[in-house]
C-alpha cells in the first residue's frame, strides 16, 4: 500500500521547519499512534528487574507499561490495562509479584500476561468468558547492552535492524564491558515543552557554550573541569556530528588515555578515571576492536523517537508537556568509586537539579510555545546550519557525517525521519538503512 504523503514539515534545502508540529493537538494524537505505536522505544533496563517476578512500571508514549520478569526469567512488556474495563492493574513504580489483580473487580493476570482468575467466572459469566483471549496486551521486547526496548508493532524490524549502525557508535559508551551496564533511577519531572525539542537538542552542540556557560564556569572554578569555548566547538575537526538510520549521534576522536565517561570527573579524581580507562582498555578492545576502543568517545546523542542522551526519556504528555526520566547508566563492573562519581556527575549535570539541564528547559519551552501564536507560526524555525557540508561517503564513519561538530544536519534529518513515520501507513513504508559498519570485536547486541 502506497502511503499518501500528508506531512511536509521540513524543507531540507533551506532548513525551514513548520512550527505546527510542536503545538497542534491533532498532530500530537497522530504521533502517539504513528510514532509511539510503532517505533522501538527504551522502556527499562534488565538491572531494574533483576529477579524473577520483579516488575518495573514504565511508559511507551502516554501508555502505561509494566515491564516484568516472569517466573521463568523471561522479560515482558504489557499495557497496564485490565482487559475487562481498562483499569490499571499496577499502581506502583516497582515491586515483585507473580500476578497483578485489578482493584475494580478482581480480574487477575499472571506476570506472563495470562488472565488467571476472574471472580464469578462460572456463576456470573456462566463459563462463557473466553479467558484465553483476554491476556494482557503485550509489546515485542528486546535488549541492547542491558537496556530494554519495546515496540507495539509486531511488524517492526528487529531491534538490531532498528538501531542499525547507530549501535556501532553507541557501543563506545554502552557495550564496553563483559559485565554489561547497570541503570540507576529514574528521576522524574515535568518539562512544559514538546517532546521533540529535547530530543533535537541532543545534537545541538551550538547551544552548549551559551546555555551552559554559567555551569562550565562554576565547574571550572570549583572542581577544575575544563571548559569548552564556542570557538573550539565550531572549529574542532576531531569531533563529529552524524545521523544514521534515524538516530542522532555526536562523538569525539580522542586518544586511548582519555576517560570515556567524563561525568563526575574533577581535577581531584581525574586520575581514577584515567586508571579505569587504561585498566579496562584490553577488555574494551577485545569487545569493540581498536578503532572504537582506542580512538572514540560518544558525546550527546538521541535515539529515535524519544531517547535523550543515554538512557533518558522524553515521554509525551500532550503537545506542550513532557515527562522527563533521567537514569544514570554505568558499567556494572566499574569500581564503586567510579560508579559513584558517574552517578553523581550524570545527575548533577543533567538531572532535574542538574547544573546544565536546569538551564535548558526555558529555552525548550519557549521554542515550543512560540508555535502557539498564529503570528509566530508564519515564520519557520530556521535549521539551515551546515547545509551542503554533510557527506554520506565518509571514509571512516558510516552515516550522514557533518564536517563540523556544530551543525543542524542531524536536526534536519530528525524531522525528516519524523515525517517518514508520520506519512507511513505501515512499517513497509519506513526505511531501514543496511548495516554497513565494521563491527570489530566480540560485542553483540545482547552480550
Amino acid at each position, binding site marked *: 500500500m502506497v502511503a499518501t504523503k500528508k506531512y511536509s514539515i521540513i524543507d531540507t534545502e533551506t532548513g525551514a521547519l513548520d512550527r505546527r508540529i510542536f503545538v497542534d493537538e491533532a498532530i500530537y494524537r497522530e504521533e502517539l499512534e504513528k510514532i509511539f505505536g510503532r517505533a522501538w522505544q527504551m522502556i527499562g533496563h534488565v538491572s531494574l528487574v533483576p529477579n524473577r517476578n520483579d516488575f518495573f512500571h514504565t511508559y511507551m508514549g502516554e501508555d502505561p507499561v509494566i515491564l516484568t520478569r516472569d517466573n521463568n526469567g523471561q522479560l515482558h512488556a504489557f499495557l497496564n490495562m485490565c482487559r475487562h474495563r481498562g483499569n490499571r492493574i499496577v*499502581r*506502583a*513504580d*516497582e*515491586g515483585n509479584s507473580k500476578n497483578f489483580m485489578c482493584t475494580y473487580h478482581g480480574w487477575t493476570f499472571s506476570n506472563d500476561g495470562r488472565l488467571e482468575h476472574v471472580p464469578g467466572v462460572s456463576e456470573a459469566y456462566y463459563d462463557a468468558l473466553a479467558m484465553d483471549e483476554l491476556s494482557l496486551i503485550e509489546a515485542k521486547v528486546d535488549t541492547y547492552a542491558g537496556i530494554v526496548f519495546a515496540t507495539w508493532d509486531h511488524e517492526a524490524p528487529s531491534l538490531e535492524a532498528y538501531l542499525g549502525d547507530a549501535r556501532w557508535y553507541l557501543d563506545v559508551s554502552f557495550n564496553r564491558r563483559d559485565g554489561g551496564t547497570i541503570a*540507576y*533511577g*529514574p*528521576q*522524574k*519531572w*515535568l*518539562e*512544559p515543552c514538546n517532546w521533540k525539542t529535547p530530543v533535537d537538542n541532543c545534537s545541538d552542540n551550538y547551544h552548549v557554550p551559551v*546555555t551552559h*556557560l*554559567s*555551569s562550565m*564556569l*562554576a*565547574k571550572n*572554578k*570549583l*572542581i577544575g573541569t575544563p571548559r569548552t569555548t564556542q570557538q573550539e566547538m565550531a572549529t574542532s575537526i576531531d569531533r563529529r556530528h552524524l545521523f544514521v538510520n534515524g538516530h542522532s549521534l555526536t562523538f569525539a576522536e580522542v586518544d586511548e588515555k582519555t576517560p570515556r565517561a567524563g561525568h563526575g570527573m574533577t581535577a581531584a579524581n581525574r586520575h581514577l578515571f584515567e586508571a579505569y580507562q587504561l585498566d579496562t582498555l584490553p577488555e574494551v578492545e577485545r569487545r569493540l576492536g581498536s578503532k572504537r576502543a582506542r580512538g572514540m568517545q560518544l558525546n550527546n546523542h538521541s535515539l529515535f523517537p524519544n531517547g535523550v542522551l543515554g538512557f533518558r526519556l522524553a515521554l509525551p504528555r500532550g503537545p506542550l508537556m513532557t*515527562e522527563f526520566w*533521567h*537514569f*544514570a547508566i554505568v558499567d556494572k563492573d566499574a569500581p*564503586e568509586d567510579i560508579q*559513584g562519581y558517574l*552517578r*553523581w556527575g*550524570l*545527575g*548533577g549535570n543533567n*538531572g*532535574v*537539579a542538574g*547544573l546544565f*539541564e*536546569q*538551564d535548558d*528547559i*526555558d*529555552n525548550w*519551552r519557549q521554542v515550543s510555545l512560540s508555535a502557539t501564536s498564529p503570528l509566530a507560526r508564519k515564520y519557520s524555525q530556521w535549521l539551515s546550519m551546515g547545509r551542503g557540508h554533510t557527506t554520506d561517503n565518509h571514509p571512516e564513519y558510516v552515516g550522514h557525517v557533518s564536517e563540523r561538530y556544530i551543525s543542524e544536519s542531524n536536526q534536519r534529518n530528525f524531522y525528516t525521519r519524523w515525517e517518514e513515520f508520520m506519512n507511513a501507513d505501515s512499517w513497509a513504508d519506513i526505511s531501514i538503512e543496511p548495516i554497513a559498519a565494521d563491527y570489530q570485536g566480540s560485542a553483540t547486541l545482547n552480550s
Partner: protein
Amino acid sequence: MATQTKAAPQTTDRELWSELMDFYIEEAWILDERRFHDWLDLFTEDAFYFMPRRKNVYRRDLAKEFSGPGDLALMEEHKTDLQMRVARLDTGMAWAEDPPSRTRHLVGNLAIQSVDGDEVHCKTAFIAHKSHLETDQDLYTGARHDILRRVDGQWKIARRTVLIDANVLLSKNLSIFL
C-alpha cells in the same frame, strides 16, 4: 527514615527547641532574600546535602520508598557542590535563575530527635513556593532531617536529608534550595 532517639530526656528542652527554631527561621529568610553566600556559611565544611528520589511503592515495599546511598538521588552534594551552585548564580548567566525565582520557605513542626554532644538530630517540615518568570509557580513540600553541629557557638548544618513528597516532580527543574 526516622532517626533513633539517643537521649530522650533532652528532647524536652524548650530553650534548645527555640534556639533551633530561630536558626531555621533565619535560614528561611536568608534563602528568600537570596543571600546565598550567607546560606553556604550555615553549612559545616564537611556538610553533606542529600535529597533521595521518592518512589511510589506498595505498602509492603515502603522500606524501598526512598532511594538509598549508592543509588541515583535527586541531589547528593558536598559543600563544594553547593558552592558550585552559588558560583553559577553569581555569573549572571544561570538562566534557570536569571531572572531569579521569588521563593518563600515556610519551616515548622520542629522535632528534636536526639542530642549527642555538640550535635543535634532534628526534623522539620517545609513548604517552599517558587514563583518564576511571569506566571510559573511550583510548590515543594517535604521534610528535612538534619544533623546540626555547634561550631564556635554557632549552629551549622552538618548533614541535611531532604525528603520530598512528590514522586514525579511537577516542576520544570529544581533550581532553588530546599
